[in-house]
Each structure stands twice: as structure tokens, then as C-alpha cells.
């Protein structure tokens, strides 16, 4: 068990191209479950592989438990990794797969068997599976073997590269909670990479959002949701995504949907001082409340997605034709072509700089 630190770590593939990972600074506490999340190409997998020692560093350093491991071979870093496609050894049995690392360490056969059985039990892997080869297992079973291979080692850090992406939806949800529970029980520092923000929000103690090699924000899920530090984070976290529109400033607020959406004075002053005539406003679908005719924002329903407990309304706003998505209770049946108005609390309106995307808090 140890802490992990990225200190200005960089990975550059081609001199002319932007870095795959750009001077990443990240402090991961001992025993923490840290999720690296971001779209494809964000550098999250590269950052993980740098921690594993499978990618070299072109700048900065990486520390595991206060020890600089930047030049250390993967096998000497005391880490274990779960690969996206599991990377199980095809010609070895499940038991041999799980015990491989211990065999490399010279652990005695009996001790190896004991630890393999223990890990198998922890993961609900039947004894009879231990003698099978990976090709005879289902996807879910293979995933658990991959996890078992990592657990058996009792390493300082767990690394997981999108371990759930090859499972079907239902299994994914189930396994998600199992992994989180397992990590809590074992208490091993875990760095987990995913592109799925739902996984990130539900599993991580803290979540680091990356985009194009750069760290956008690292905070608890709650903090990311309530206080995104820029437009990217605001739009990435939360499902369905936050509605984001570029709108012109007006007296007391911004012009939107034929009316003026009021904003706090501090924000408006800040925006005017920055010389802006337009800003980006963001409102989460769940913060657009149906108001019977008295809301600030008016529009016409285009599509209703009935999810059962909720419904998602796709609404074309008056004057301008922008579309937004609003989340409402499922019980209030609405239909396309109906006219609706929305009310939104001023605190629920996020404001961003139209060019830098930084949050304008005023």
C-alpha cells in the first residue's frame, strides 16, 4: 500500500505533435480509489501505462510511496495491472494464470496455491474453473480471473485499464459494485481508467478528468458535479450532459429563448470587465423545472424520451431554435408540439468564458 504521485509527468510521441500526457500533476493518497476519466485520446490510458512502466517518461517523474520509479522496470514497481482485454495467458490454466507472478517471484508451490485459492474465493470463482484454460471461460469469468491475477500479488498499487468495457451492461453494473467493494476491503491504492463517467462517479473516491493530455480537474464526484472548474468538466460529468449555449449578454443577465435569464451581478460584472459580449451558459437537464407558463425559458417539445421514472424532454427554445434537454418526472405525460416553460434557479446556472472555457464565478 502506498501513495502515488505524478510530478509534471509527460509523454511525447512526436516532437511536432502535442504531448499525449502534458505535465501531469496528480497526488493519489494511500488506499485511495482514483479514477482517471476522459474521452478517447485524453491521455488517461497513457498516464496509467506510464505508472505501470510500460511507457517511458519524456519529462517529470512518477513516485510510488515516495520512491522515484521513473526508471524502474515494471516488475520492480510492485504493481499489478488489469488489462482492458484481460491479457490472460492462453496456454495456462486459470490457476497458473493467477499464480504466474508469484511463480516469477519464487514463491513456493503450496503458498502459491493457497493464495490463488483465497483470491478465487474472494472473486467467487469456482474451484473447478481453476483447471480450465481461458478460452473455456465466459467474458465475466475471464474478467474475474484477470482481477484475481492482480489481487493474488498483494501489490502496492492496483492499475485497471477499462476492465469493464468488454462486459454487457447488466454485468457491468454488477461488477462495478463488486470492484468498489473489493477495493474497500483490501484497502489497496487503485488507479482506474475509464471513459464512462457513470463508472467514474460511482466508483472513485476522487476523479481526475483529463482532456487532450491535460488534467482538467481532480476532485470528489460531488465536487465535480457541483463545481466544475471549466466547460469541459461541466459538459463531461453528468448524464444527460449539461446544456451549454453561447449567448449574448443583456441587461441583468443573458438573452436566451426570447427573454432574459437573470444572472448574479458579480458574474455579469466580471464578464463585462473581461471585455466579453457573449458568454457560455450551462444548465443541467435536471435543473430545468417545468413551470406552468411562468418560467423564464419558453419552448416547444420536439421529442419525449420516457425512461420510466424520468422523462427526457427535447425542447426547441423560442427565438433562436436552440435545443435543450430537460429532465422531468415520468408521471407528467407531455407530448411533442406542446408548449412549455422552464424555471431555473440562478445558482444552477453555470457561466463559462467563451474562449478559454474557464468558469466565471464572479
Amino acid at each position, binding site marked *: 500500500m502506498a501513495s502515488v504521485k505524478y510530478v509534471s509527468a509527460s509523454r511525447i510521441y512526436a516532437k511536432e505533435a502535442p504531448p499525449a500526457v502534458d505535465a501531469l500533476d496528480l497526488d493519489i493518497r494511500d488506499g485511495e480509489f482514483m479514477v482517471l476519466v476522459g474521452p478517447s485520446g485524453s491521455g488517461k490510458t497513457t498516464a496509467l501505462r506510464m505508472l505501470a512502466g*510500460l511507457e517511458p517518461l519524456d519529462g517529470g517523474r512518477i513516485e510510488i510511496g515516495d520512491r522515484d520509479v521513473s526508471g524502474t522496470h515494471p516488475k520492480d514497481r510492485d504493481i499489478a495491472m488489469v*488489462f482492458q482485454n484481460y*491479457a490472460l495467458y*492462453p496456454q495456462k490454466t486459470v490457476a497458473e494464470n493467477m499464480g*504466474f*507472478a508469484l511463480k*516469477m*517471484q519464487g514463491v513456493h508451490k503450496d503458498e502459491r496455491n493457497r493464495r490463488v485459492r483465497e483470491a478465487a474465493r474472494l472473486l467467487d470463482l469456482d474451484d473447478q474453473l481453476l483447471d480450465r484454460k481461458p478460452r473455456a471461460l465466459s467474458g465475466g469469468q475471464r474478467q474475474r480471473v484477470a482481477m484475481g491475477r492482480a489481487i493474488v500479488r498483494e501489490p502496492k498499487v492496483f492499475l485497471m485499464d477499462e476492465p469493464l468495457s468488454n462486459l454487457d451492461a447488466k454485468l457491468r453494473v454488477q461488477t462495478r459494485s463488486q470492484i468498489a467493494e473489493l477495493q474497500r476491503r483490501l484497502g489497496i491504492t487503485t488507479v482506474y481508467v475509464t471513459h464512462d463517467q457513470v463508472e467514474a462517479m460511482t466508483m472513485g473516491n476522487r476523479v481526475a478528468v483529463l482532456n487532450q493530455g491535460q488534467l482538467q480537474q481532480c476532485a470528489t464526484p460531488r465536487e465535480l458535479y457541483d463545481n466544475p472548474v471549466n466547460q469541459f468538466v461541466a459538459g463531461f460529468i453528468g448524464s444527460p450532459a449539461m446544456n451549454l449555449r453561447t449567448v449574448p449578454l443583456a441587461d441583468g443577465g443573458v438573452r436566451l429563448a426570447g427573454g432574459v435569464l437573470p444572472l448574479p451581478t458579480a458574474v455579469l460584472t466580471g464578464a463585462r470587465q473581461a471585455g466579453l459580449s457573449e458568454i457560455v451558459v450551462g444548465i443541467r437537464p435536471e435543473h430545468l423545472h417545468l413551470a406552468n407558463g411562468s418560467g423564464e425559458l419558453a419552448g416547444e417539445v420536439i421529442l419525449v424520451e420516457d425512461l420510466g421514472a424520468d422523462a427526457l424532454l427535447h425542447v426547441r427554445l423560442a427565438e433562436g431554435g436552440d435545443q435543450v434537454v430537460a429532465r422531468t418526472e415520468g408521471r407528467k405525460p407531455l407530448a411533442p408540439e406542446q408548449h412549455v416553460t422552464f424555471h431555473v434557479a440562478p445558482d444552477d446556472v453555470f457561466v463559462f468564458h467563451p474562449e478559454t472555457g474557464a468558469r466565471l464565478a464572479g
Partner: protein
Amino acid sequence: MTVIEDLAPPPKVEIRPSGVSRRDRWLTRLPLLPALIYVVVVTQIPFLVTLWYSFQSYFWNTPEPARFNGLDNYKAVFTNPAFRGALVRSVVMTATAVIVAMILGVAFAVLLDRKFVGRSVVRTLIITPFLVMPAAAALVWAGPMLDPNFGLINYLLEPFGVHHVAWLSVHALGSVILVMIWQWTPFMTLIVLAGLQSQPPDTLEAAKVDGAGALATFRELTMPHLRPYIELGILLGSIYLVNVFDAVRLMTNGGPGTSTTNIPFYLYQQVNNAFDIGGAAAAGVVTVILTIIVATFALRMFARVFQFEEAQG
């Protein structure tokens, strides 16, 4: 993968089979017939003729026509030390060449599997011996390379205390085997290389993370993965190497004495020098039977090579 074919066995009761399925079956067989008939005619007819002649006494250097002589030819084959000797030598030559070529093949494949400056050039250089005409290879090795008086090998080995060795006299068998190895190592290399390159890279990374060094990874992961490739190489290589003729004929002409005479050369001598068609035929049949026996054993061992995956349909 569905197999579209008529799976039902023919009914015992006399029911007229539906036109479609019968036609379908023949339609499926049709594409195979040309190749099948061709091979049967061109290979089995000569074999049947060989079989027939093996029971005849038939010599070309006499005007007498072929005369039935029962099993006399076969008796001659089994009592003939020359045939037995050729058999032993065939086994020795083939086994040595195949094994050494495969060992070198694995080594060279490992060498070529990593990126380095000029890798494709080196691969081209290593492939070339396989492309050289075997007759040319035999003559070039016999002359410019191994000749005691002007051969390159003697020149290169001089600093090591080797002086004008007459390789084809003193180490005849070794020289022939050397040329066989030289020509077939590229074949083994390429097969093993294909195997190395088909290894999923993430399992190799997983081994790295699991603490396996290069040697351990090779032993525990790569070799098991390479097994079917190695078996294929050994099987195919043996099939071709057991029939090697050019090197024997052109380097040593079977000699000195009979020290490099293998089965193909022995049979050639029977036909061309002894004009003994009947005897050659009997020896040929015995060879075929022995080959079948060995092949059956080999196939049982190498069952994996014939990965009869379910065909597509």
C-alpha cells in the same frame, strides 16, 4: 459458422431423394473433382505401375522383356545392405537438418522480431538461401565455398588452425547436411517469425508487469505459443528434406563410397546405373510403406498441426 451441406445420412428405405439435395451435393463436390481426379491420375497411376513392376524382373540393359518374379525383388531389397544404409543415412540427414534448421530458425526469428536499423534488409539476407536454386547452391558450396584448394571456407577458417580441409572427402555427410540446413533455415525462420508476430502484445505486457524477465517470458509464454508453428515447420521441412536429391548428386555423387547416399539418390542409381527397374520399384514401394508408417506416427504426434477447424459455409 454454419455448414451448408446435406447432413442426413442416406435413408435405408428406398425413398426417392429430393432433387435439390442430391443436386446440391454434387454441386458441392464438383469444384473438387478436377483437382482430385488430376492428382489421382498423375500420382496413383505411376504408383500402381511401380507396384506392378516391383514384382517383375525388368532390366533396361538387356533386350529381355519384363518377367514376373514374385517377391524376389523385395527379398533383394531387405537383404541389400546398400538399401539399409541409404535408409539410415536418409534418417540421419533429415533429422539432423530439420532439428538444426529449426533451432536456428527460432533463434533467427527471435532476432528478427525486434525492431532495429535495417531489419528488413537483414530479413531479406536471411531469406535468400531458400530462394537459391538447390542445384546452384550445391555446386557453389561444392566449388567456390568448400574446395580444399581455393574454397572460401578454408580461407576464412585458416586463422583458426584449419588448413586446406577437403570437406567433401573427409566430412562429406556433414557438408551435405550443412547445405541442407543453409537452404531450409529461412523456411523455419519465417514460420516461427509468423508465430512470434501473432502473439497478442498485451499478454507480453502482462508478463512484464507480473515480473517475468525476457528469458522467463520466452520460456513460459512464447514457446507454448510457438508450438503449433514449430510442429508445422518440422512436418513440412521433413517432407521436403527427406526427398533432397540435388545436393547429394552434385556435391558428392553419393560418395565417398556410399557415405552420403540417401534414398532418393539410391533409387536414382538403381534406375540410371543399374538399369534395374524391378529392383528400384520394389525399393520404392518399401520406401513408401516406411514413409506411411512414419507419417502416421508423426501425424498422431502432431495432430494439432492439422487444425481442422470447422470449415465455413
